[in-house]
């Protein structure tokens, strides 16, 4: 069976929005990645002082939302809303029947900051002081619901929760919704905002976080021999996806296409990656098949590459397993952005589309001493000028979730 025989229709990407540690919008993300800028900083507030890992990549929400609007939204909903507004405006604020408009925004953690804050209110002041907005602020589908209300989506509002694969899984679900004819436009992406001592302490107890406190901007270093864990990030990435026919009919500008998705699960361990990489490889193979492209057609890879010792190598094995002799250039946006958990897959799909449209693949930041067990063509030191047609973006999450996306020009 050839790959093309199982290929299904691509969908058009007509709007992009991103609020990331590299800046306020998609332009800042693009520029930051090409410059190899770091969004990582040391958390120096007193509440972080005793933590064994005190690094994070945060976003600036100052003046982005109306005060009254913001006070009913958890930070994860706020970042989702800001990115969705950018994406929607970028798509030309399409006039669409709400019955044909859906939203899929994933989140790994949900409204954790509100949960933690209101737990303190409950202890200090009792149950009558707890906010009546607590539940809609903490529920994981809060970001999707917020965006759905904003744009009047009535064809369904969904929230895939698959840890660090949530954002990518949201795009995979959006692709299904459009292909199956259940919507004409889907606003899809991921959001995360859980920079707080408790999640940091939890990740630190897993020994998952970098502790390179003396050099925050060098802490996220995928594929480098000195990598010692990921850096917790926050932010959101949102894409406006629509059927090719719908985009053409309204004369929309098209950034590129989401051409295929592949989902698999490891069934190996709840948090550790399968060292053989077979689950991840199956998701990659499935995505390529879904898009109808062969391994040798992939022009670059936006790897999941979180900068953990085990994860980066397991993924490298998975890529080689799935791609065989093909060796497309690999980049790792998390070297600049940190790890945006449930937002990462969406932000990195945007990064992949930007590389496709510009023909420029950002270099992996902080890659001073390549781990030679990562047997890949990794883009180092300088931006790779490389016009190409097909990109692969991978995302993997605690729970053994493997999601791969194929994007095309």
């Amino acid at each position, binding site marked *: 069976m050839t790959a093309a025989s199982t290929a299904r229709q691509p969908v058009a990407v007509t709007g992009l929005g991103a609020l990331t540690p590299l800046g306020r919008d998609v332009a800042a993300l693009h520029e930051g990645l090409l410059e190899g800028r770091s969004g990582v900083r040391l958390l120096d507030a007193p509440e972080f002082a005793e933590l064994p890992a005190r690094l994070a990549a945060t976003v600036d929400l100052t003046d982005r939302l109306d005060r*009254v609007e913001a006070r009913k939204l958890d930070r994860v909903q706020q970042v989702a809303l800001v990115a969705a507004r950018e994406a929607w405006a970028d798509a030309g604020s399409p006039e669409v029947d709400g019955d044909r408009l859906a939203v899929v925004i994933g989140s790994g953690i949900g409204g954790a900051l509100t949960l933690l804050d209101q737990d303190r209110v409950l202890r200090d002041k009792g149950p009558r002081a707890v906010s009546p907005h607590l539940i809609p602020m903490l529920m994981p589908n809060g970001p999707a619901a917020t965006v759905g209300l904003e744009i009047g989506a009535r064809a369904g509002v969904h929230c895939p929760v698959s840890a660090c694969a949530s954002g990518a899984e949201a795009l995979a679900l959006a692709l299904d919704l459009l292909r199956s004819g259940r919507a004409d436009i889907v606003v899809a992406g991921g959001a995360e905002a859980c920079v707080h001592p408790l999640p940091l302490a939890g990740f630190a107890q897993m020994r998952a976080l970098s502790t390179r406190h003396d050099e925050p901007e060098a802490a996220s270093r995928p594929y480098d021999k000195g990598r010692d864990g990921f850096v917790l990030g926050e932010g959101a990435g949102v894409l406006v996806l629509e059927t090719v026919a719908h985009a053409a009919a309204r004369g929309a500008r098209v950034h590129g296409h989401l051409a295929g998705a592949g989902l698999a699960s490891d069934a190996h361990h709840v948090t550790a990656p399968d060292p053989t990489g077979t689950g991840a490889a199956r998701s990659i193979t499935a995505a390529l098949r879904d898009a109808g492209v062969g391994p040798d057609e992939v022009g670059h890879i936006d790897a999941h590459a979180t900068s953990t010792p085990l994860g980066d190598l397991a993924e490298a094995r998975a890529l080689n397993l799935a791609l065989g002799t093909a060796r497309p250039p690999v980049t790792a946006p998390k070297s600049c952005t940190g790890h945006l958990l449930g937002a990462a897959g969406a932000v990195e799909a945007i990064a992949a589309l930007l590389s496709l449209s510009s023909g420029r693949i950002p270099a992996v930041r902080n890659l001073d001493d390549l781990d030679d067990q990562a047997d890949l063509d990794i883009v180092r030191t300088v931006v790779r000028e490389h016009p190409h047609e097909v990109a692969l973006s991978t995302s993997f999450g605690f729970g053994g979730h493997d999601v791969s996306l194929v994007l095309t020009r």
Partner: protein
Amino acid sequence: MTAPDPASVLTGLADVLQEVAGTPADKVVREAGFEADLDIDSLTMVEVVVACEEKWGVRIPDAALEGLRTVGDAVDYIAGAAK
């Protein structure tokens, strides 16, 4: 604590509504309906109640809430309850 007069409760309630819902002070008049005129939904109304309870040291039970349709209803209830 001396009982607040209705005029000061009205001013204080306007402050609460500005803080919680961004309602402009000039809209907070006795005749204004919370839901009908000020667009205060039921969840936000709970926030308003809690803020009023803290501000004036009164208790506004859910049973009383149903009777508080307008700003004037709330002002009279709070001024009466705080006595």
